[in-house]
């Protein structure tokens, strides 16, 4: 059963259209991440789902009930805000019971619910404190607690981790995941951090300029991005895009890098549908799909000579900033395999993982 359905949704402020034809559905219990750069409309979309913004046209359904014109309180949702939005003059306990108080839930039941949720989130000792007396991580927990006391049909998270420091963010991220596994509620999670989206979501909706670019599982999004934007946005360091041409030889299709030495990089047979010899393409390779030839264990038939401009060790991996034929290439390699700056090395490319994009439409070519 689908728990959230968004159909042909449009939102405009006067002349400015901020959301265009959004179609999205989430199954019961799913964790959906809305991801995209600032101003892509993801937070607006979340506000529309919450009922804080009106719909210009289209439909929003929660558990198959049209809620376009329902007030937020009638949608049976709970939301966690980026700023946490804890009521500053109330204690943690009052923050959590405020919603139940509004819905006239008996005091005894309120008490039980708070006790249960406080136990779940381990915020029992904080119940009588004011938000100003809490640390960032504790506030975050209380904000989630306030959402959890509700037992809603839908959880909405609006960049809940972006105000935390890096270490705490990773901690809370896995905690949100654990929590979701335990509670099993349909969740919509807005973030600009593609790592959060990848780690948490069962499906990711990538948005850009008010348009839903792709809506799919993290694996599909990462391996088979629909277009150049999705490919570039997901993954860090970002995917390399090289201008190239398709060539055809006896061995089948391949690509050559524009301005390079004409080395043919053979494409696997299942990548070659819809290609024509001589066609200009954007050749997309993720940094981790490069490997120095001497260290590469697989097929090394596709190689590329690159000049190493800069080496950035990060500990777990080493990032190489290189150039080939005047185009920048970023590769990430094992620290032990890393060359020195100024060296020219040969990189083997895992051709089964590459993507080809049409230079004009920016859509991914081939299957």
């Amino acid at each position, binding site marked *: 059963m689908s728990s959230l359905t968004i159909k042909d949704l449009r939102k405009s402020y006067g002349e400015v259209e901020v959301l265009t034809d959004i179609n999205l559905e989430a199954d019961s219990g799913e964790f959906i991440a809305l991801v995209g750069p600032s101003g892509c409309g993801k937070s607006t979309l979340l506000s529309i789902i919450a009922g804080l913004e009106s719909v210009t046209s289209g439909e929003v359904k929660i558990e198959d009930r049209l809620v376009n014109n329902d*007030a*937020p309180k009638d949608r049976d949702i709970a939301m966690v805000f980026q700023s946490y*939005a804890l009521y500053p003059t109330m204690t943690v306990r009052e923050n959590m019971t405020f919603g139940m108080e*509004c819905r006239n839930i008996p005091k005894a039941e309120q008490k039980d619910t708070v006790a249960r949720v406080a136990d779940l989130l381990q915020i029992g000792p904080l119940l009588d404190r004011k938000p*100003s007396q809490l640390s960032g991580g504790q506030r975050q927990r209380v904000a989630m607690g306030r959402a959890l006391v509700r037992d809603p049909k839908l959880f909405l998270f609006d960049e809940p981790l972006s105000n935390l420091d890096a270490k705490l963010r990773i901690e809370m991220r896995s905690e949100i995941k654990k929590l979701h596994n335990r509670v099993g509620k349909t969740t919509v999670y807005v973030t600009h951090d593609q790592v959060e989206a990848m780690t948490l979501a069962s499906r990711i909706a990538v948005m850009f300029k008010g348009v839903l670019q792709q809506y799919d599982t993290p694996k599909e999004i990462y391996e088979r991005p629909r277009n150049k934007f999705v490919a570039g946005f997901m993954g860090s360091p970002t995917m390399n895009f090289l201008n190239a041409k398709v060539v055809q030889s006896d061995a089948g299709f391949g690509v050559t890098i524009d301005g390079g030495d004409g080395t043919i990089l053979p494409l696997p047979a299942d990548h070659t549908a819809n290609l024509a010899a001589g066609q200009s393409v954007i050749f997309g390779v993720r940094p981790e799909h490069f490997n120095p030839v001497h260290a590469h264990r697989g097929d090394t038939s596709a190689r590329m000579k690159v000049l190493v401009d800069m080496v950035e060790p990060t500990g777990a991996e080493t990032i190489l900033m290189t150039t080939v034929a005047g185009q920048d290439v970023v590769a990430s390699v094992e620290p032990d395999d890393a060359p020195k700056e100024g060296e020219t090395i040969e990189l083997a490319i895992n051709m089964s993982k590459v993507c080809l994009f049409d230079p004009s439409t920016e859509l991914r070519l081939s299957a």
Partner: protein
Amino acid sequence: MADTSTHEQFDPLATGGMRRRITSKGIVYGALSVFALIYIAPLLIILLNTLRPLEDIVRTGFIALPDAETMTLRYWGEAWGSFCIGGTCEGVSRFYKNSLLMTIPATILSTMIGLLNGYILSKWRFRYDGLIFGLITLGVFMPQQMTLLPWAFVLGKLGLSNTIAGLVFVHTVQGISFTTLFCRNYFVSIPDDLIKAARIDGAGFWRIFRRIILPLSPPIVIVTVIWQFTGIWNEFLFGTVFTSGGNQPITSAIVAFSGSGTGERHYNIEAAAVIMAALPPLFIYIAGGKYFVRGLTQGAVK
């Protein structure tokens, strides 16, 4: 309330040669003392005159110390309870009561309406909200004299001419411009997310106001109360124009009895009355002044 004076203040005279420090401190304190004396002198003179018999004042002039033998507090009593103003001999107590009856309700009403207006104009979007806010605050810049005729007309139509209730009405409406401006600008700094969270929690317009906005409002309530109370208490024009006789507020009454022309001027009694009239705003400012400056300058609610 957090203590705001935890840091050491910068003292530009803390270093330098002994000579420089002594001369510069001497200049600073000398100049400050002269100005302090200028400011305090009128109050001091008036205060001393309340203790002196009229003959003494007439004989030696305004500026003199009271004679220890004739010094008395009875003029305070007379000014309060028995001095004759415009035919009635009740002192200023009656007008004092008028002023309180006018100032307290008008302050409370205008503050409450201002809080509500500020909440609506800062947290709820509706068509022409900016225009309405602009029109309300226009009242801040409107000269009082311009409103005299319209008010006279309105009060006459309502049957409130020459009544305290009429003055309460005028001051409430006149005050809304200020209180709305203050409250709206203060509430703007309350994060909208709080309102959104409350709406998702199921709270409506009034519950959000009562449970979220009002508990955050004490700083701005203190500001508007001080502003309105002192403003309305000290107001003279409306009181003089719209009321007469026993219905006047104290500001108008004092002028009435100092200029009543019934022969000799009772400077000592007038002085006592003037000081009494100045006490309530002074008290309210001293009580809330700390919060006044803080409320005006800080908007943050964190």
